[in-house]
């Protein structure tokens, strides 16, 4: 799950996908941009999304998102809230689990 704290611009779902792909292209080139990334959900209000990627491309995607600096000439930052191989695990915070 990723959250995008922004300066003021609000991208919609398609622009968000394009932002992710352009971040991959900037860092890892055409091979990175060709990585199949799916945006599973996207909330425009909180600017947060859930992305899915193949496990071999996970490091590339995460590093590309971390190093992204600009969106439409504005500073932006991706904040990765949670990562997990299972979708259900994103629903809760496993560190605060009480057994």
């Amino acid at each position, binding site marked *: 799950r990723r959250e995008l*704290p922004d*300066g003021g611009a609000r991208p919609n779902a398609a622009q968000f996908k394009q932002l992710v792909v352009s971040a991959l292209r*900037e*860092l890892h080139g055409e091979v990175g941009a060709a990585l199949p990334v799916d945006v599973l959900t996207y909330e425009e209000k909180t600017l947060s999304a859930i992305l899915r990627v193949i496990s071999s491309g996970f*490091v590339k995607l*995460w*590093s590309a*998102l*971390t*190093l*992204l*600096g600009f969106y439409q000439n504005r*500073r*932006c*930052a*991706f*904040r*990765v809230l949670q*990562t997990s191989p299972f979708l259900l695990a994103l629903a809760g*915070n496993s*560190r*605060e689990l009480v057994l």
Partner: protein
Amino acid sequence: QTILVVCFSVGYSAVALNHVIDFKEKKQEISKPVSPSELFPSLPIVQGTSKRIKVLTRLTLVVSDPSHCNLLRSTSANIRLYDIIAVFPKTEKLFHIACTTLDVDLVCINVTEKLPFYFRRPPVNMAIDRGIYFELLYTPAIKDSTMRRYTISNAISLMQICKGKNIVISSAAERALELRGPYDVANLGLLFGLSESEAKAAVSTNCRAAMLHGETRKTACGVVYTVKKPRKVEEEETTVPACKKAKTQA
């Protein structure tokens, strides 16, 4: 600089379960150490794990001349107030001096331009033995794509020589939006060529160890440098376990 502290607190409180609870405030001084007597009304903020964020002071010396190194010994009254001292060498000789004889905790590695010197193994190994950590900054990688290339190339060449030991990754962020969470930064370590455990250590345990190194340097500061240096080194080593015990108890 008060803005910086506010930025940091906003950023790291957003990352709920944070490995690196302490963070450092960087003050750039060139040949004029000003004592940070009252930097800011320190805001201890309770975090997600019910511990307070620690704010440490840190001094970075940009040395391009061997005479700058004398500042470390002469004006030790001011320097003692800083928790961590880092040096930023610009030439190979200074890098060698910093790794072998200078009394610092961190050696900054330039990431914004092509290194004018190559790393050599002897000074790097000596630095690792002395407990000095090499620091890489990642904020230029966010700002500019040419700096990104230099960051990665310099980091990779450092990795080849030091095999991933004693690396600390930190941000020289000037705004709140340039900060990244600790797991993101550990992932960047993977890009630089570290293994996964090393990358995570670069963000958490190595930083802690650098802090402790700074503390031992502070406590053993009363000794005269010129002749009694071997004894001072022994004193440092005996204070390290005490400090570590105090930290784990606190």
